């Protein structure tokens, strides 16, 4: 696969090639070259099958890391193409013309992370949510439990006790730290 790595590096400035497994590698490109990289992989390198596309919120670095996993069935090899996009202004070129299902992934990423793919069909429509008023919920700073507790009423009457605290209360209550 090293030839592919070199080729990608030369053509699209791909870097950080890792062989994760015998049949799985990953590499990183700039988001601006993401579309072209994928197009080349699909049309010229045999990576014609898009397994999935998704994003990871790397909030610490202030980026969303997009992951497009493409597979070359002839060579039995999958490649994860990563691209970091700015969390503050996440806009990426759409791949809906490359793959027929691309727009669905992009709708998902738009709704779940707030990453925009201008031109992608129905990208601004709600995908799985309806009437959602919160922030994109797959972002790391969205607290699902807090939202759930604030929005949906649970059944009252649950109380639990910490064993260590309970034992202190019952066995050595005088020990106040």
């Amino acid at each position, binding site marked *: 696969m090293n030839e592919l790595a070199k080729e990608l590096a030369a053509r699209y400035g791909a870097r950080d090639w890792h062989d*994760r*497994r015998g*049949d*799985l590698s*990953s590499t990183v490109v700039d988001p601006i070259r993401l579309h072209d990289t994928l197009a080349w992989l*699909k049309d010229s390198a045999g990576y*014609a*099958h*898009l*397994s*999935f596309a*998704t994003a*990871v*919120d790397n909030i610490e670095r202030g980026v969303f890391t997009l*992951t497009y*996993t493409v597979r070359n*069935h002839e060579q*039995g090899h*999958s490649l*994860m193409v990563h691209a970091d996009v700015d969390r503050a202004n996440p806009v990426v070129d759409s791949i809906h013309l490359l*793959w*027929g*299902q691309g*727009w*669905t*992934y992009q709708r998902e990423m738009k709704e779940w992370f707030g990453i925009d793919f201008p031109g992608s069909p*129905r990208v601004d429509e*709600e*995908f*799985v*949510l*309806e009437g959602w008023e919160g922030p994109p*919920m*797959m972002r*790391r700073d*969205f607290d*699902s*439990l807090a939202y759930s507790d604030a929005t949906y009423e649970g059944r009252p009457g649950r109380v639990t006790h910490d064993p260590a605290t309970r034992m202190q209360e019952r066995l050595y209550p005088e020990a106040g730290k």
Partner: protein
Amino acid sequence: MRRQNEHVIPPETRATPDLSSGKYLVMWQGPQHPGITGNMSLRLVADGDTVVDCETHVGYLHRGFEKLMERRLWMQNFPLVCRIAVPEPDFNEYCYAAALEELAGVTVPEKAVWLRTLSLEMIRLASFLMWIGGQAGAFGHGTIAQWSVTMRDYVLDLFEELSGGRIYHMYIIPGGVRGDVPDGFLDHVLETMQVIKKNLDDIELVMFHNAVFKMRAVGLGYIPPDWVDKYGITGPNARSAGVARDLRKDLGYLAYPQLDFKLITGGRSDAFERAELRLAEMYQSIDLIRQIVARMPKDGPFRERLPNPLHWKIPAGETYVAAECTRGEYGFYVVSDGGDKPRRVAVRGPSYTHAVSVMERLVRGVNIADVAGLMVSLHTYPPEIER
């Protein structure tokens, strides 16, 4: 004979019917509709009896698994993942476990490998059995479901005996499996396979040699081979289009490289042939199950000991583990930041493409009455779309 072997390729671009013209009917099929698989909906625009445009709407079953998984410990996610796809929970269990094992550098004992394979083949059979009932039912053929769902139940009985659960087996745990086979279990498996095989023969006769089914299914939903890569089609849908891809062969995971089976492909690529192909795969599953029972090691450990699940941390890394489920490529993309919880887990279900992009396109030009049959013939399952 309508549509016999005639390959109508639906238009690539969406129709833009003038809805105010009064010529078209906008109707919703689902979520509360017997002709829809699972809980999703289609917004159909019909010109007379013919669908001219379709929009899929998903999310009725969205529970936010991927978010919930980021909140739970690695091991705590093990009971959660199987809920992503109810008819085939084991593929979730396997992919999740395998991804974790790969990231943590754990090797699973041989016995567990075989038990996992057995589990996956059994659920494949069960899932297909349920599907075939739905496929027949969608064309008004209720008898098949009366048989096949019972046959599926027999497989579930086996799972109950093996794992303690009927629907959610929670058997394939990271590190291996949760227990060895109980006494007499393998005999029960073989007996059940015998019963199911006999029943499949009946189904073959009654369903596939049925004029009604033939008339409605032949030629319906033709998928051209070039769509396979274009739309990311996998599984029987792709194989029926003549594309010989099966991850059991391609990836060679679990005990599959040691099992003897042939890739089944077709070429006519319509609803009828997809059904035929799945029937053949059911027979193949029975055969594989028999092979597994015969060749599985009798003794040995079934689980590798892992660190304390309450503190288990997995080294930073990412991986994508896929397996061939009944519908195609099922995969888990798992990212660890070195902590005790996943950084990100993304689930790739085959319905993601089949039930949305492919469905929306295939349904253009189809008779309203065939929409349900077409959808079932793609073998879709909404929860794996929306998770």
